[in-house]
């Protein structure tokens, strides 16, 4: 390793790093993906329960009605929509659609805010906040 490289200041204050709007979209795509993977065993368990009997189905429905669960589900919808839209954006970029810097920034901006907007809308609808 060249000597001068070791002399560089290491400055990784995460609060001082300003991500561009496309970077925010990208890291959210990652985080939402990981969170949804972690949720998989719980979803399989709920599927199992929902198919066992009338009573078990009802307990799944009751669980969804719980305020804490409603909040978690609202977050989940946000994660899913962001991951979905950002994913479709990547598919379109693969097809050379929206690759120019200005349109790539615009689509990232719109998707980031659409996710937040949906989350706010769901919170309003579910809790009347």
């Amino acid at each position: 390793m060249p000597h001068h490289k070791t002399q560089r200041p290491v400055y990784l204050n995460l609060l001082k790093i300003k991500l561009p709007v496309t970077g925010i979209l990208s890291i959210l795509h990652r985080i939402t993906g990981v969170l949804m993977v972690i949720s998989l065993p719980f979803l399989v368990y709920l599927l199992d329960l929902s198919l066992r009997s009338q009573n078990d189905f009802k307990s799944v429905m009751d669980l969804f009605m719980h305020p804490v669960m409603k909040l978690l589900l609202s977050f989940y919808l946000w994660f899913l929509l962001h991951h979905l839209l950002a994913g479709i954006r990547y598919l379109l970029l693969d097809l050379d659609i929206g690759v120019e810097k200005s349109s790539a920034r615009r689509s990232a901006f719109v998707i980031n805010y659409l996710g937040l907007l949906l989350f706010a809308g769901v919170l309003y609808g579910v809790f009347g906040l």
Partner: protein
Amino acid sequence: MNWRGDGMRSWLIQRVSAIFIILYLIYLLFSVSGFIQLDYQNWHAWVSLTANKVLIVLFFLSLLLHAWVGIRDVVLDYLHGFTTRFIALTAIIGSMLAMAIWLLLIIIKV
């Protein structure tokens, strides 16, 4: 060691599985919103259809493949060293295989 395998293949798996996941979610949403009432009978009857069982299993396998490609990229970006990566990736693949078998057992029982 080349953990990523064939990059082109991973790229393709990620996109094909993504499209299948989207189509399945649209189908699920349309089906469930077509129920007269969201109750156990309608839900159980819908899952009982052979075509839907096949689609559910295909959907879950696509989901696991999609998750595997994504999670592997995350692990390789943030975890370093052979042992760490080996333990993390083995644990992930193990849990994913376990979930695949679990889902199969659930669907076969219905």
